[in-house]
């Protein structure tokens, strides 16, 4: 099966060029709905109206505006916005190679796969194998859809993965949180018991062990509604009550044995 690519270009590091294609690595499986009119079940259309003249505005009469003070906008043409994107570059220039394990996953936004191109197979394999051997990730910048992204390239199974990244000023630091401290810290005994509880729940990460049960339930519900069999669906379950910390720990551990 041919995988559709969304961009093609080159990953360059110090004079070595790896020609690549970019593919999406994730897909949204959420259940999507259409907006409909309650009275007749007909689809809802979105129309753009001028807020002053109360008449529909055709797409070609729409411009982008940045609000500088209330009600005052600086108008920008598409070309002017594009000017900010950076050169129409087809190259992801690697700036540095960093230890992949040092990058906290909160930095990552979206993942793509990089596929090799016929004229650059040797260089692709070389970059993959060398990154794997060194445990490093390549950091560079990528211009995609008129926007420049900071990206990390790292080996993922046999292929290379590319992550778009957040900038550090886009992250809220733990210091910005106001976490109250208890007058008394948890006792060693509590920590030890909590540690035992962690052990009883310890597992090897297996992504396939978690299904989107909400999505399943929603689709099941829709199916039942379509067939007029809603009354046959099972009821959801109840939550449990909170209790005394130590007693709860004890009960949890003995319950697992």
């Amino acid at each position, binding site marked *: 099966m041919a995988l559709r690519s969304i961009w093609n270009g080159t990953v360059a590091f110090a*004079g070595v060029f790896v020609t690549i294609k970019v593919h999406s690595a994730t897909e949204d499986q959420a259940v999507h709905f259409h907006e409909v009119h309650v009275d007749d079940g007909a689809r809802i259309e979105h129309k753009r109206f001028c807020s002053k003249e109360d008449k529909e505005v055709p797409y070609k009469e729409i411009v982008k505006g940045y609000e500088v003070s209330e009600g005052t906008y600086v108008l920008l043409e598409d070309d002017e916005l594009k000017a900010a994107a950076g050169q129409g570059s087809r190259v992801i220039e690697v700036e540095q190679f960093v230890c992949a394990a040092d990058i906290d996953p909160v930095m990552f936004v979206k993942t793509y796969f990089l596929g090799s191109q016929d004229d650059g197979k040797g260089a692709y394999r070389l970059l993959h*194998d060398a990154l794997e051997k060194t445990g490093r990730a390549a950091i560079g910048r990528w211009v995609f859809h008129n926007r420049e992204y*900071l990206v990390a390239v790292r080996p993922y*199974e046999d292929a290379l993965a590319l992550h778009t990244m957040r900038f550090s000023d886009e992250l809220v630091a733990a210091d910005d949180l106001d976490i109250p401290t208890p007058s008394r810290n948890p006792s060693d005994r509590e920590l030890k018991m909590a540690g035992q509880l962690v052990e009883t729940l*310890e597992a090897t990460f297996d992504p396939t062990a978690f299904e989107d049960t909400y999505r399943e339930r929603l689709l099941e519900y829709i199916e039942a*509604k379509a067939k007029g069999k809603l009354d046959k669906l099972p009821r959801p379950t109840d939550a449990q009550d909170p209790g005394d910390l130590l007693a709860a720990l004890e009960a949890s551990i003995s319950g697992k044995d």
Partner: protein
Amino acid sequence: MPRSLWTGSLSFGLVNVPVRLMSATRDLDLHFRQLHESDKVPVETQRWCSEEGKQVPWEAITRSYERDDGESVIVTDEDLEAIEPRKTKTIEIEQFVDLADVDPIYFDHPYWLVPAGDDEGATRAYRLLLGVMEQTDRAALGRFVMRAKEHLAIVRARDGALSLTTMRFHDEVRSAKGVPSATGKTAKPSRKELDGAVALIEALGADWKPEAYEDEYRKRLKKVVDRKRKGKTIEIDDSDAKPPEPVPDLMAALQAALEDAKKRKAPAR
């Protein structure tokens, strides 16, 4: 302190930790509004019934799901409430795993968890969970419902607080198997080439310092807005940079790059 987006409890065995969820990110993007060109006022979206050709108020709109056979099923707010689990205010920890085993491809949006309330019970339970996760170096996997959707989440200790990141389900992550990745014998690098590339990567190696990278795009965009505001023209560079040609001799390119990297590194010491 950022606003809380969700309040509930993190449940771990029979222990409940009352928590508030807040975003771990802030939006620094420049946002633009759609304006009507002739009078420079914002454009607003109106919802119209496609059958009757008239505007529909918000209360008269519901949602419908289109089945594979093309038939539509109306799904009301009450329908969604009916399937929302009643334990909706709980993040139930199901497993503790090694963070290193969880590929970042599964990570979606990061949040912070803080104790809900400053009473002794809430803050001590929070400290207990934080302490035990720091001690065992494990991350917790659990589920919770936020904005009418169930999320899989990973909770771990980060910088002295509990961090929660929503996760993608396994069927939302594509397999890399179909990605052309030059696994054929002819593409396999020689020992010498691999050693050369490893040496080059180490020579270009640096410590990861996230604050060393700035959003140049955001800065340029601000500049464009500023210039335009002052009535200056924006220079537009249409020239596409020429794509580099793949090198015929990888080894020669590696050697040249390696020497270059060594030269650049030497005077810095």
